[in-house]
Structure formats: C-alpha cells, structure tokens
C-alpha cells in the first residue's frame, strides 16, 4: 500500500509525497521550499530523499533549499548542471542504473522532453508495491510489469487542442511544442493498453493542462480503458 499525497500538479508547480509506511520520498520540488514545508506540516525530516525529473522550475524550484535542509536530491547530471546544483547532498543518478532509498529500490529511465537529461522513475519495495512515475514526456520507450500504482502525466487531448487552434485560442507553434513535450490522453491510453494493468490499484493522472484538458472526461476514459481506480491530481 502506497500513500500518495499531491502537493501540486500543474505548470505552476509539481510535487508529490509518497510513502510505503516506512520510507517517505518527495517526487519533484516544483514549489518554494516554504510552500512544501507548509504542505507537509513542517515535517521535512520525515523525507528520506527527493527525486527530480528535470530542470524546469515547476519541477525543481526548491532543490537548493532542500539540500540545505539536509535532504538528498537524486537527479541526472544534465538536470544538476542545468540548475547549477552541487555538493554532497546531490546524488547524481543515471537512466537504467538502480539505487535505493530506505525501503525503496528505484530505477530511473529516460523519457522524452525538450530538456537536458529528463528521467522517469520506477519504484519498488519488498512489500510488493511497484510504482511508475512518468511526467513531462510525450511518450515512454519502456514497458513495465507488475505495476500496482501508476502516476502518469495526462496533459492534453488532441481534439481539444485542435479545437482551440481552430478558434484562435492557441497558437499553432504552441501546439507543435506541446506535441513534442507532453503526454496526450490518446498516447496515455495506448501506453496503458500495452502494459499489464491487472494488479494496478491506483492510477494518478498528473499535470493536466488548464486549457487543453477535461478532468472528468479524462478520468472517465482512463477508467474505461483500465478498470482501475483513477484519481486526477488537481491543483
């Protein structure tokens, strides 16, 4: 059983606390440190480590302060360089090289986003939990087995985007960047179809775009595709 707490999931900022009851981890640090502190009731010392996918500020804003607070940051060399991170609290990780934090065994993997060296994460523990964290990517090269939890970006739907371009609310250049940076509902469904979702207890849809998504419809369609419990990370 994994406890997932969403601190925020949008272009304004992203952060999630996950815990298996023994080891709590912060996924992303996309808010000012004080905001994260407040959201976690000032119990930052409970956090055993922080994983960061890439250098955009809505994912890495608090990284320097988190390190100063004595918590290790785990991220790629590319992300660290882009954000100017260094020091003994920085733990540089690489795609497909696993490491452990407390009870968690973690495998980073490459994802597709327009940044230096973005990563997704596969986390597992001996209790049988297995969680994949996939955000800010337009597709995933990999497949996973035996997942119990999926936290996946579901940013836009192509028909909504096309509608807005036709109506002049979205510039075609923005659409083009979107197609190469973020996960569409259609691609998420395709990914879920080819992965083994029989053991999945919970699916979190992350990073829904304000204008290009429809939370209720996305939730409905993913539930139909997988039969699993689906939550939409609002805020």
């Amino acid at each position, binding site marked *: 059983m994994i406890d997932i707490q969403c601190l925020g999931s949008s272009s304004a900022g992203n952060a999630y606390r996950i815990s298996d009851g023994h080891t709590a981890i912060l996924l992303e640090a996309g808010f000012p440190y004080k905001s994260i502190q407040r959201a976690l009731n000032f119990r930052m010392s409970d956090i055993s480590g922080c994983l960061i996918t890439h250098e955009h500020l809505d994912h890495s804003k608090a990284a320097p302060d988190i390190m100063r607070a004595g918590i290790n940051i785990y991220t790629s060399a590319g992300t660290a360089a882009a954000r100017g991170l260094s020091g003994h609290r920085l733990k540089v990780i690489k795609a497909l090289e696993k490491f452990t934090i407390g009870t968690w065994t973690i495998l980073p993997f490459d994802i597709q986003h327009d940044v230096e060296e973005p990563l997704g994460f596969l986390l597992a*523990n*001996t209790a049988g939990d297995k969680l994949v964290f996939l955000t800010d990517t337009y597709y995933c090269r*990999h497949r*996973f087995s035996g997942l119990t939890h999926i936290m996946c970006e579901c940013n836009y739907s192509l028909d909504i985007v096309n509608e807005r371009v036709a109506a002049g609310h979205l510039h075609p250049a923005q659409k083009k960047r979107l197609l190469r940076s973020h996960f569409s509902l259609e691609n998420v469904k395709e*990914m879920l179809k080819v992965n083994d979702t029989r053991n999945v207890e919970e699916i979190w849809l992350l990073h829904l775009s304000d204008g290009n998504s429809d939370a209720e419809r996305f939730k409905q369609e993913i539930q139909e595709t997988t039969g699993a419990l689906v939550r939409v990370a609002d805020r």
Partner: protein
Amino acid sequence: MSTGNQVAIIQKDITDDVNRSLTRLQDDGLILPMNYNASNALKSAFFKLQEVQDKNGKPALEVCSRESVANALLDMVVQGLSPAKTQCYFIVYGSKLQLNRSYFGTQAVLKRLSNVKDIWANVIYKGDVFEYEVAGGREKLVKHETSFENRDNEILGVYAVVKSVDDEEILTVMTKKEVDASWSQSKTSQSVHKKFPQEMAKRTVINRAAKAYINTSDDSDLLVDAINRSTDNEYEERIDVTPEEVKAEIAEHANREVIDIVPEVTPPSSKQQTAPRTKQLVDDPYDFADDVPPLEQEMDF
C-alpha cells in the same frame, strides 16, 4: 415487416439520388467500365449495408446521414467498384458513411486508367534474394527469389509492379519501416494489420504505387477525384495529423522494451536495537524475555 419496408424506401430514395447524380456525371464526361452494371452494384451495396454497424452496434442505415450514404455509393459507382467482389467496403465514422477500397479495388481502378495494363504486389521475406536497379532514373525489378519456407519468416519489405500499356514495368519498393510508418497513419487500431501483415503490406504498396499513375493520368477528373477520396478516407484528416515525424517516432519507439526491478531487502536493523535484547538476556536466566514484547521507546520512563 415495417423495418423491411423502411429499408426498401430508403434504398429507393438513395438509389434515385445516386442515379440522378450518375447521369449528370456521365453527361460531364464520366465513362463507366464496359461490363459494369451500376444497378447491380447498388443492389449489392445495399445488401452489404444492412450488415454494416457502427462501433456501438447500431445499423449503418440508422445512424448515417442520407447524404453520406449517397456520396459513398456514388464514389463506388464512379470508380466502377463492386462490393460483391470485395473491392470495397463501407465503414461508419460517427454519423458518416465512408467508402474504403480493398487492394483488389485499388488494382481494379488502376486497370481502368488508360495508361495502365496491370499491377501486382509481392512481399519480401527474410531469406529471400531480392535485387532491383535504377535504370534511366526508374526503379526496375532485377530478381526476386524466394522459397516456400520463407513465408513464415520476418517481413523485410514489399514491392509492387505496374505494367503500362507499353509493357514497361515500373517498380515501387517499401521497407518494413516505411510500411509501419504508413500504417501508423491509419484510422483503425491496426489490429487487422497485425493479423494479416502480408496482405496489408501488399495493399499499402499498391496504394503507394497507384498514386503516381492516378494523379498523372489523362482520365476524367471525376474518376480521379473519386479514387483519391476513397484513399483519403483511410487516414485521419490532415488537420488532425500530428507532425509526421512525431507520429512516426512514437509508433517506432513507444512502449517497447520491458524494464523492471527486484526490490532489495531492507538491511538488518542497527546495533542500537540489538543492545537492549542482549542486556535483557543477561538478566533473564529463565528465558522469559520472549513472552513479553519489548517496550516502545516512547514509554521509557
């Protein structure tokens, strides 16, 4: 009985529409194949249409607009296609009926063009010997040797040959990668492509080969427009297509290799926890310690 009557009325109305349009098109210069009987084709089409359903299982004639049915049937007749020969079939998209050609149909329409005598396609399997050359700027087949055993091997590519009325043979080759990129543009989920890859690959290369001939032929624009409309029906409309390289990249790379981890066992507990037990054991000559759970640290007075 009332349902049968309704279908008959619909059939008569639409058939009349199609026949009127056809007459007008023939006045404008459209020529139908010599042995083609439009009436028979329309009757056959309605027979097929009664079996066509949308994705919710509703009959096509109930959900589709009358104009889209009439237009699909007109495209069928203009191209001289016969549903009885499985040259074409009808698919419901939302509330519209669209005509799609099978590759028999594409071969049939190509043979109607005044500059084409014949067209055929073959699949290249792993283990085949396949050689072609570029002679005078055109691709030509030199050799394709295969054996029965190779038919279950991996498909490496596919080619089509068009024989012109001058008996010149022009080759069109597609690699497996090109075929896959083409399939990713398809509106369907590609389930039929996975089941019948050889036939679908032939179909793809015939459509590719046909394009050059169709759009440069001297034949009536009415015919060429109808042919191209049916080909386009298989693909998402241009405005909805994501940039081709993105779609192709995703089709090629997404959801491929399985990665997994075996969680590592938690390291043994620290020495601090061991010490209290050791101490208890020393003071516990009768070995009662196991009967009483250790006190929580918080309760240490």
